[in-house]
């Protein structure tokens, strides 16, 4: 088994004390970020990127840190769902359905414990899936030519809105805006200055880290200022653990089903963790039928979405690592990190940067174990943190974003740029223009242009090369479907998710 050998090498990378320390730190910070309402995994990873840079971490360490944050945030999301009935992000919504009722019945400790175990199972299943699927897909992707890559990028944009996205045209607009920003600077192939207006700072283009931190972190602050979620929260008591071993054993089939379903929906472009937790929950409801008390605090109602959600987060790494095409917002941010480290994501990464890829995968496995170990005893600490009023917390988070950006270049020019992106992000979010396609456009724009150029050179300027091969044609068709499906399936799915939320007797 070739893969196993690589994985062993990966463990050798991930298990060095230095990397292990960062994995632990990332897992801890990630859980912290995940459990704070309003801060999702994408924001968390975005804020930590500049720090990873300024610390001058080696590439594999930086990636290990950020993947641990990502996995941790997925773990942490469940805490506020269960205790406060406030999902930190969309995938955590389904956990509220049975988690909060359990907490109300005084079984908060059990819900937290069992959801940590489910997150572990989901993450583990997802990572195993990643180990099996990624090398195969990477090999397949080696057959891609420039035309196929161009079509693949289109596919990524088309499906990024996700099937829950509202208006696909807004995804198109967002992606175009992002690619447009990426064209600012000196054209690599001809040396032409594009859209620099003679401003020196723009010659090298707009740094996407500024854009990411501004769009995610600063706009989040502005949203908070507008809504003023208010001061302290009621103090939550967790209570004693009364979970029996027998009860835990009965959830094993649910863990397996949820993890596998989650992984599959994570791999599929555009589906992501929201769908993962949703279908795992619905399937479980159908499988158990009347035997379950879903919506009233059934333990399996907590297990299914958490396993699904964490399975999906590993699944989303498959297209990111093998094709260089992220399946979700957070993986887009991770991709940004890879590109900034001068690593071209995609099939070649598996041969050229095998130590990084396998180090990250091994770190995911280790991270999941760390998270489980961290989460059970420290849950009380994370719960306490929930009672820190966001009015103190958000300004500090914003300040950390400032420090991170400033430390990279020591230029205040960058800070103004970041604030400008934050204000723009606020308006765009208000107008329901999704931010992730903008980021992805910024990241993939240059690659897209390069591949277009190569394809044209190969065909002597014949544009039909872009859809000439069956593979490229297939990608175009899937991309087309990705744009049309949200119109057809999206409203239905959203309605069902909302209906499920309403069915639950306690949620308001």
């Amino acid at each position, binding site marked *: 088994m070739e893969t196993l050998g690589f994985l062993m090498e990966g463990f050798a990378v991930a298990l060095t004390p230095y990397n292990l320390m960062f994995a632990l730190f990332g897992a801890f910070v990630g859980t912290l970020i995940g459990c704070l309402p309003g801060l999702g995994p994408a924001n968390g990873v975005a804020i930590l990127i500049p720090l990873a840079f300024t610390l001058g971490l080696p590439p594999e360490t930086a990636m290990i840190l950020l993947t641990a944050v990502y996995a941790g945030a997925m773990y942490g999301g469940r805490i506020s769902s269960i205790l406060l009935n406030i999902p930190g992000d969309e995938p955590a919504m389904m956990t509220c359905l049975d988690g909060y009722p359990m907490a109300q019945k005084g079984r908060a400790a059990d819900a937290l414990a069992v959801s940590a175990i489910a997150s572990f199972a989901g993450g583990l299943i997802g990572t195993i899936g990643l180990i099996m699927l990624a090398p195969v897909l990477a090999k397949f992707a080696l057959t891609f030519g420039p035309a196929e890559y161009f079509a693949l990028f289109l596919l990524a944009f088309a499906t990024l809105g996700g099937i829950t996205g509202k208006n696909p045209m807004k995804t*198109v607009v967002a992606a175009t805006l992002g690619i447009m920003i990426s064209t600012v600077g000196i054209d690599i192939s001809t040396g032409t200055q594009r859209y620099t207006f003679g401003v020196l700072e723009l010659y090298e283009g707009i740094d996407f880290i500024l854009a990411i931190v501004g769009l995610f972190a600063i706009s989040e602050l502005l949203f908070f200022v507008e809504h003023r979620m208010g001061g302290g929260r009621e103090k939550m008591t967790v209570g004693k653990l009364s979970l029996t071993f027998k009860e835990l054993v009965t959830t094993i089939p649910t863990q397996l089903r949820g993890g596998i379903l989650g992984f599959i929906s994570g791999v599929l472009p555009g589906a992501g963790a929201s769908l993962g937790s949703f279908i795992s929950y619905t399937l479980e409801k159908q499988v158990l039928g009347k035997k379950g008390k879903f919506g009233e605090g059934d333990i399996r109602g907590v297990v299914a979405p958490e396993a699904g959600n964490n399975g999906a987060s590993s699944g989303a790494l498959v297209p990111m690592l093998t094709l260089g095409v992220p399946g979700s917002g957070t993986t887009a941010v991770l991709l940004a990190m890879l590109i900034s480290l001068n690593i071209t994501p995609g099939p070649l990464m598996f041969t050229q940067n095998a130590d990084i890829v396998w180090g990250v995968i091994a770190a995911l496995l280790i991270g999941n174990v760390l998270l489980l170990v961290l989460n059970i005893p420290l849950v009380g600490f994370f719960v306490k943190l929930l009672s820190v009023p966001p009015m*103190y917390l958000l300004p500090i988070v*914003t300040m950390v974003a400032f420090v991170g950006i400033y430390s990279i270049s020591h230029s205040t020019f960058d800070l103004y740029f970041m604030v400008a992106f934050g204000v723009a992000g606020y308006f765009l979010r208000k107008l329901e223009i999704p931010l992730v396609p903008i980021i992805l456009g910024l990241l993939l724009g240059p690659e*897209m242009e390069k591949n277009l150029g190569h394809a044209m050179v190969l065909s002597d300027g014949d544009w039909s090369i872009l859809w000439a091969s069956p593979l490229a044609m297939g990608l175009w068709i899937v991309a087309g479907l990705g744009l049309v499906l949200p119109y057809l399936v999206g409203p239905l799915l959203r309605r069902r998710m909302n209906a499920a939320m309403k069915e639950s007797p306690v949620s308001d």
Partner: protein
Amino acid sequence: MTSFGDRILGLGLLVLAVAYGWAAQQWPEPFGGAESVGPETFPTILSVVLVAGSLYLMIKPDPDAQWPIGKSALELVVSVVVLIVYALLLEPLGFIIATTLAVGTLSWRMGAVPNRAFLTGLISAVVVFVLFNHGLSLSLPAGLLEVN
């Protein structure tokens, strides 16, 4: 008229798309003659896509979001101004003073008691400063507090 937001956005994007596309046509032909894909090809495609997208937004706008009015709009402006002033003062005043003021003002405007807000600002500023300058040996500006 409802759906004002999307229409204005559409109009703005249309102007942007046309200006962006027009600018691309003005670049001199690169040395070595025109290739099938020059520096202007890709931007031209993008501007066409954005024109189509902006027209769509104007023709089929989504219902309007709730925009903040009065006090919360003012608070938003205040926050943005605080961030800009923070960037402006970071180097002259130094990290600790600038951060105390910025974090303090922000949490105060979000509803914290002023004393506690500025205390939070001071504590977090000192912690981050010490952590960065001594723990991670990255220099943040000391500004007025510089000890010679």
